[in-house]
């Protein structure tokens, strides 16, 4: 009987140990990964909800692929004028409506344009945003990649007609939860601060030639 009891105890202990190891922590904690997105940048699109230009820009951010990709990488904040958020945080510092503003995670404005100064195509807006970012980060585009930066314009697909105005009584689609950082632009269509490659080579050849000529003169003119 003693041996049976001992064996039972051993079995129970072993099974408890294994349960602990197999199941991990035996509490009811729900483990979640909180998004460490404090490094994400912010894009604010500010405007009057009834303004066609504002609606168009919002549409660009959901339909144009590069802008949609950018939207997923930043904290995207559509702000309607006359809202409390607008009154408290934008009214005093926007130059006009609609406004598109890109800020880094510290709030430093990297790009801002309003009203007529806004590009009138989604490609233009993306280019302007990308250009501002690369300027801020001081990343020159390599000369041989410049032609890739601005693709030739091609006729776009016909826009799908929407049955009515968008429903402004709904909150925007929630953004993906991820660990964010500064947005990653595909191409930055800005002028490089470096001179073109051919100019650098030409300068090298001319300088070398001049040096040779001077030396030639020094050596043979004396003779």
């Amino acid at each position, binding site marked *: 009987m003693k041996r049976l009891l001992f064996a039972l105890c051993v079995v129970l202990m072993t099974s408890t140990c294994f349960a602990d190891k197999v199941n991990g922590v035996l509490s009811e*904690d729900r483990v*979640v990964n*909180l*998004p*460490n*997105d*404090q490094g994400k940048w*912010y894009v*604010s699109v500010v405007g009057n909800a009834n303004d066609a230009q504002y609606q168009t820009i919002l549409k660009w951010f959901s339909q144009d692929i590069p802008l949609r990709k950018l939207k997923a990488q930043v*904290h*995207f*904040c*559509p702000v309607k004028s006359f*809202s*409390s*958020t607008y*009154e*408290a*945080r934008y009214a005093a*510092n926007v130059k006009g409506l609609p406004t598109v*503003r890109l*800020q880094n995670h*510290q*709030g*430093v*404005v990297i790009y*801002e344009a309003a009203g007529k100064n806004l590009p009138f195509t989604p490609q233009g807006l993306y280019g302007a945003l990308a250009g501002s970012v690369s300027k801020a980060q001081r990343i020159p585009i390599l000369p041989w990649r410049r032609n890739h930066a601005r693709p030739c314009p091609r006729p776009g697909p016909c826009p799908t007609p929407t049955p009515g105005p968008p429903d402004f*009584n*709904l*909150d*925007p689609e*929630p*953004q993906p*939860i991820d660990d964010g950082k500064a947005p990653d632009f595909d191409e930055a269509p800005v002028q490089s601060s*470096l*001179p073109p490659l051919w100019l*650098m080579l030409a*300068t*090298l050849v001319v*300088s*070398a030639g*001049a*040096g*040779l000529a*001077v*030396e*030639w003169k*020094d*050596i043979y003119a004396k003779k």
Partner: protein
Amino acid sequence: MKRLFVALVLCISLTGCEGDFNQLNPIQPKKPTVNAERPLVNIPMALRQENWIGNQREGSCVHATMISLMRWQGRTHLANKWKRTYANGEWPEGLASKFDREGVRYAYTDKGDVRFLEWASRTRRGCGITVMGGAHMVALVHLDDKWACLLDNNSISKYKWVSREAVIAEWKASHGWAVTPIYTPAAPKPQ
């Protein structure tokens, strides 16, 4: 011939010096002085939800705090719906089931894990924290290595700055429950 060679090398090495100088010794542009907004979660007055008495004669501090945070995170319509639908006292499981029912994205701790508060402040979302032995919830709108800032739904007109240690001690002595929705925080004021 030697002199010619030296001259050639000199010429080649000096070519383009001017162009490269800025790259070798970059002149750093004056970095703009960034004065981070304080508190980090600077909820506009009009978005702050005051506490109210529910139909069971209980205060609705948890719901009021969540509504303020939802508005700060751009979920105005969700916040308005929440105000119309829910009231009275709340506890972690009850709120979690309501969030699940409404499809709200949220995170919480009821174990007094300070890392949760630091995360909520760092990501500018803020969170509700229990105080007064668990009888009340306020919004934690800032937490740094010295200070914490609270927005009490019983007195929404002003922030209350308290030492970090005092807030953490109060919170841990009040069941250590902290909760927040997870959406997009309002953009910082331009610097």
